[in-house]
């Protein structure tokens, strides 16, 4: 067998192992989907009235792509906590003593978490449809919208994998990633239009990849009517391209770093 087929088959074994945990601990999936549902309902009904939107778009349509993005980015933080847990329980040592592919443990982890994120998105989309969100685009565009959310989340998972390998304590990994993820998802166009931001934050928000993944999703789901202007920043004018560049750069940097950290976990 070639190295590539070995990597693929080992990664599948690990992905399957990670998904079995989801099956055995249904709370995981319940809570992973419950909080986005709660977010949808809270923002739609509690804050929705207070947020000013230009004519031509309902808050539900504006909101859902933002919730999708926030949820999958948060969902990716579980990658770090799960890897830290495996480290603590000695499973990473077990895997490292086996003649398996060197990247399979991390691939299997990030792919399983991608699967969880896909499930969350489906649940949120269904909830969204109930509260007035609509897809106003073609089927391929809508699929593109879901894909770009998942691609970006997959890249974030690899960042979190590195955090998990370096921090090593699941609870700390969670807190550490929230410190990074909260500002990224809130200083963005996730819940409110960028026009309402003070200027410095606004520039940050315009170039924040979370804003652009949200914008890309809005465009692809047809939740951005022509009557509503988008900020002039190049990032927001070309959100799909800009987001994909970010995802590619994150993967190019963090995949090798995470694999190296994985191989060196015991050196300390």
């Amino acid at each position, binding site marked *: *067998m070639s190295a590539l087929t*070995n990597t693929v*088959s*080992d990664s599948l*074994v690990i992905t399957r*192992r990670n998904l*079995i*945990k989801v099956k*055995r*601990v249904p709370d995981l999936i319940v809570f992973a989907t419950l909080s986005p549902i709660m977010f949808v309902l809270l923002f739609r009904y509690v804050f929705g009235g207070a947020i000013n939107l230009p004519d031509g778009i309902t808050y539900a349509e504006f909101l859902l792509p933002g919730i999708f993005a926030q949820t999958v980015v948060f969902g990716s933080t579980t990658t770090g906590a799960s890897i830290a847990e495996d480290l603590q*329980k*000695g*499973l990473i*040592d*077990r*895997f*490292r*003593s*086996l*003649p*398996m592919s060197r990247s*399979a443990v991390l691939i299997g982890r990030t792919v399983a978490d991608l699967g969880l994120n896909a499930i969350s998105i489906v649940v949120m989309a269904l909830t969204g449809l109930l509260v007035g969100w609509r897809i106003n685009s073609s089927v391929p565009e809508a699929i593109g919208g879901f894909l770009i959310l998942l691609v970006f989340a997959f890249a974030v998972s690899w960042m979190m994998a590195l955090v998990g390998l370096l921090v090593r304590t699941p609870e700390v990994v969670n807190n550490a990633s929230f410190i990074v993820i909260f500002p990224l998802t809130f200083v963005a166009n996730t819940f409110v239009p960028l026009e309402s931001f003070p200027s410095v934050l606004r520039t940050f928000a315009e170039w924040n990849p979370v804003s652009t993944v949200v914008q890309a999703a809005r465009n692809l789901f047809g939740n951005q009517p022509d009557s509503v202007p988008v900020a002039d920043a190049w990032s927001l004018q070309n959100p799909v391209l800009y987001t994909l560049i970010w995802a590619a750069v994150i993967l190019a940097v963090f995949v090798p770093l995470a694999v190296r950290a994985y191989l060196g976990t*015991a*050196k*300390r």
Partner: protein
Amino acid sequence: MSRGGSQDAVVVEGLVKRFGGNTALDGVDLAVPEGTVLGLLGPNGAGKTTVVRILSTLLQADGGRATVAGLDVATQADQVRGVIGLTGQYAAVDEYLTGVENLEMVGRLYRLGKKEARSRAVDLLDRFDLSDAARRPAKTYSGGMRRRLDIAASLIARPRVLFLDEPTTGLDPRSRLGMWEFIADLVSDGTTILLTTQYLEEADRLADAMVVIDRGRVIARGTADELKAQVGGERLELTVGSVPELARATEELRSLALDEPRSDEQTRRLTLPVSGGAATLAEALRRLEQAGVTLLDVGLRRPDLDDVFLTLTGRPAEDAAPSGDGASTPARTEETVR
């Protein structure tokens, strides 16, 4: 010294490992001939786990070299992983997977086919008395069951060389006996084993040869008999009625001892290295009777590995503190060190 040669399945030469300023291994040499068991003994913090982790490619040494089945652990780590099985000091099983799933997963990662992984898993679960629990998540297993599952996992691909880091710690006596039989079977099938243990009886039972390390250095090596001979003499061991009597007995008998007597207040037991056999025993009894010391138990025995350990390291085998600090090390050991 390493005996070298192609018949050694494991060869370790001048192995050095530092953690920050702490030197965990300070030039360890050892060899395990093909198809034999080497017992690696030493008090807590001696460096046993560090040796095992370097040999199983989890850690990189700072100096020296090591080969497993003729493969260099530093430069041929991938091939080494294909021929070894590792049971680490702490059980590494996936709690959410069942027993069968755990073993199948490891089997698949050793590149066994689906069918083979499954049938090996079923065999091993049976062998380790886990058949009834095979379809339950390992989360529901007791500590001993996890331990057995962990060992089964390291055996799934029939490794040529097996590393067992304290394999029977936490097992009840029956499981321990079962494990010993199993290890003996593995050896008769040609598996080479390096095993660390805190149980000297276990090393005595299983190991063809032993290496004793302390603070990262080899301090003795040989068969159990050779080590015992190295310590020499016999041991006069007696249990007295009360703690004050223990001190009195120690004073009375000190002149009979070849070396500093060892007393334990908790068990009220006194151990003296002696020579002269029955005559010495009779003399001891006479003196104690004169001093009015109540004897609960008395006997003469050959030194066991505990004595070997104590004599060589100045600390008993199960003592927790590697630095020999007062908290967990009774005063008696300090006397023996000097």
